[in-house]
């Protein structure tokens, strides 16, 4: 059954990829693509639910299914084995559930695109690799899925590759991820050397054993985190995610918000056996996570592209998840993965609905007043915004509050400093999300009359999905994910003396969300005057934030240009042209020169040749007479 879960989307990819693309001559129509592209993920979702029932019936003993033995090297087998436990169940439900509804949404969103079949083929391929990643028992299978989702991300970011900027964005995502993958691979090598297996449950068990394993947990932890930080867009490898918004909006929702970017969180949670013995690596994760969360939130405050705001918001939320991982609250991080998948997918799809309604406009400066024109989108977007801002009792409030609490009180590296930065991040989150809501839907319209004339609510296939996700964003917090995962991923112990802060912090947390809402309402509620005044008061800060801390420019100077210089001067001009070409040209020149020299003898006059022959004969006769 586990194998079927993974293979169903692959079947969809093959069918749609062969029959519904230009490659196969567009044999089938959109109806076939829709049925195959959405139906198979839905069946996969049903199978995940069935597996969960089976898991529960077996008292939560992990289900293992060996699909294929790849190779046997020495005593260590490399198997394609699938593993289904509580953590897998949560992730697989999110991937297939949210994935399926985004597929349904895409039917409406992409209906006029000529690459309809290709789009669904890619989406199904992505789902296949993502399920391989989540269900794989061995790090090797996980890595195959890991690279596969990277490939699909690349293909889908550059889906409209006719525009060079989209193709560039895809390339940037791909190259940035390779940096992290190098670390991931090294970590895998170390683990295999130490344990002779890459099965993650065995590795976790080995780290928990009485005898210490012959490998540094912190080193392995940091190497794996390098891979996770690239996939989940953490500092310093976050630069690809904002550019990845070049892809179609359902892709942003599915890959770059709900599922793929949380693969890094899943990896760390899955390998928590290592991180429990690696306090240094955990501290690094917590600090990088909270720094990323804060940094991205500040950038999101000044962005004007609706999808860019959501992209930085995603980076920020991922940072919070890593903060939770860093303080040992793995189950809480997964909880936030789940709620984030609900409300961020809803936000992205809502943004897609807005873009759809405005005929491709993404700049919030040319929106406004949409609330009455597209009410379903507005209300679902509002619910999701309130959820991410942490307004109780919506989903984001519960998960974010737990992250803040464990960042404050965990005995595994929690500290008030982490809490303070995370709380400021939460404040900024509430502020920029309500700012986005105001600029997009409320206030006076700033649209051109032509655009305004065409505004229309999206079809039911899109609004239905929005309503479903809004519902999940509203009630998702009541799904007790941490309690469900507790048996597998126990929550860290808390500092006893800090328990008295629990209720005050809860109040602060709610207050933060409301302050963010109030600030946004104050600045943007009554037209642009106040926000413009604020911008003119701090022009330097605004420029600094709007240019994303000049990190792209920094990388361009520090990495891009030196690389181009080395490639041009050392590899091209010196290595290729001077050394390689030079050697061959030199050899040819020697041949030509000696040919020219010998050619002088060939005078073309037979008499000279005869003379030479004569001289030769006489000379050799004389020599032989002398010496023989």
């Amino acid at each position, binding site marked *: 059954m586990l194998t079927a879960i993974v293979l169903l989307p692959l079947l969809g990819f093959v069918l749609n990829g062969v029959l519904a693309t230009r490659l196969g001559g567009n044999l089938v129509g959109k109806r076939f693509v829709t049925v195959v592209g959405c139906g198979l993920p839905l069946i996969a979702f049903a199978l995940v639910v069935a597996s969960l029932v089976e898991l529960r019936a077996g008292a939560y003993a992990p289900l293992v299914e060996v699909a294929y033995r790849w190779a046997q090297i020495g005593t260590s087998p490399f198997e394609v084995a699938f593993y289904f436990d509580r953590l897998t169940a949560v992730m697989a439900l999110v991937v297939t559930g949210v994935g399926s509804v985004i597929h349904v949404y895409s039917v409406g969103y992409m209906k006029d695109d000529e690459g309809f079949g290709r789009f669904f083929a890619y989406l199904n391929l992505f789902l296949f690799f993502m399920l391989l990643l989540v269900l794989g028992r061995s790090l090797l299978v996980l890595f195959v899925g890991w690279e596969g989702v990277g490939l699909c991300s690349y293909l889908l970011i550059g889906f409209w590759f006719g525009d060079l900027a989209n193709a560039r964005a895809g390339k940037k995502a791909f190259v940035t991820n390779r940096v992290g993958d190098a670390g991931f691979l090294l970590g895998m090598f170390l683990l295999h050397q130490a344990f002779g297996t890459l099965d993650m449950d065995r590795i976790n068990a080995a780290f928990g054993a009485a005898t210490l394993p012959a490998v540094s947990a912190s080193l392995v932890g940091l190497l794996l985190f390098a891979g996770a930080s690239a996939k989940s867009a953490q500092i310093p490898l976050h630069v690809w995610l904002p550019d990845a918004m070049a892809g179609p909006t359902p892709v942003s929702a599915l890959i770059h918000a709900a599922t793929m970017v949380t693969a890094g969180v899943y990896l760390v949670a899955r390998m928590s056996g290592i991180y429990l013995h690696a306090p240094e690596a955990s501290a690094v994760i917590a600090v990088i996570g909270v720094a990323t969360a804060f940094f991205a939130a500040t950038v999101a405050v000044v962005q004007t592209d609706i999808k860019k705001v959501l992209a930085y918001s995603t980076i920020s939320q991922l940072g919070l998840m890593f903060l939770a991982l860093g303080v040992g609250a793995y189950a809480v991080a997964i909880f936030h993965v789940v709620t984030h998948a609900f409300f961020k997918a809803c936000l992205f799809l809502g943004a897609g609905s807005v873009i759809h309604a405005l005929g491709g406009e993404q700049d919030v400066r040319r929106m406004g007043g949409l609330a009455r024109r597209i009410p379903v989108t507005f209300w679902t977007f509002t619910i999701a915004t309130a959820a991410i801002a942490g307004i109780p009792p919506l989903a984001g409030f519960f998960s974010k509050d737990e992250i803040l609490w464990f960042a404050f009180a965990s005995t595994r590296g929690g500290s008030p400093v982490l809490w303070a930065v995370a709380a400021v991040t939460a404040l900024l989150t509430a502020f920029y999300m309500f700012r986005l809501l105001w600029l997009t839907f409320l206030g006076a319209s700033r649209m051109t009359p032509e655009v305004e004339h065409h505004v229309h609510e999206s079809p039911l296939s899109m609004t239905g999905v929005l309503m479903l996700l809004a519902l999940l964003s509203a009630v998702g917090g009541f799904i007790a994910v941490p309690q469900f995962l507790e048996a597998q991923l126990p929550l860290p112990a808390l500092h006893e003396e800090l328990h008295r802060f629990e209720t005050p912090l809860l109040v602060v947390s709610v207050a933060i969300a409301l302050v963010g809402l109030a600030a946004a309402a104050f600045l943007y509620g009554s037209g642009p005057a106040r926000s413009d005044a604020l911008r003119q008061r701090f022009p330097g800060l605004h420029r600094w934030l709007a240019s994303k801390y000049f990190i792209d420019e920094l990388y361009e100077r520090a990495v891009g240009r030196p690389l181009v210089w080395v490639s041009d001067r050392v590899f091209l001009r010196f290595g290729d042209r001077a050394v390689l070409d030079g050697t061959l040209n030199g050899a040819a020149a020697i041949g030509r020169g000696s040919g020219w020299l010998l050619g002088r003898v*060939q005078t*073309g*006059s037979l*008499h000279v040749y*005869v*003379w030479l022959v*004569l001289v030769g004969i006489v000379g050799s006769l004389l020599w032989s007479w002398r010496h023989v």
Partner: protein
Amino acid sequence: MDRTQLLIGVAVALFSLGLVGVIVRRNVLVMLMCMELMLNGVNLSLVTFAQQTGTTVGAVLVFLVFVVATVEIALAIPIVLLLVRDKRTLDLGAYNDLKG
């Protein structure tokens, strides 16, 4: 001066005449004839020495030279004919197309 010395002298004279002819003349046919002269000089010396030593090896070798000379002329004359057809002259100075 006995007969052997005389014959060797004639042989050397024939060879030298041929050699000088090959070197100084520019007419292709004359040069070919001069080469035949050289061969004849060699043949004469071979026969002379065979007579002197009373063996037949030298005489047999002469027949071999005859055969080789015949073949050589049989090949050389058509070549000369082709050359002449190309440039309408027997002067070797005209045939320097392979000059390096």
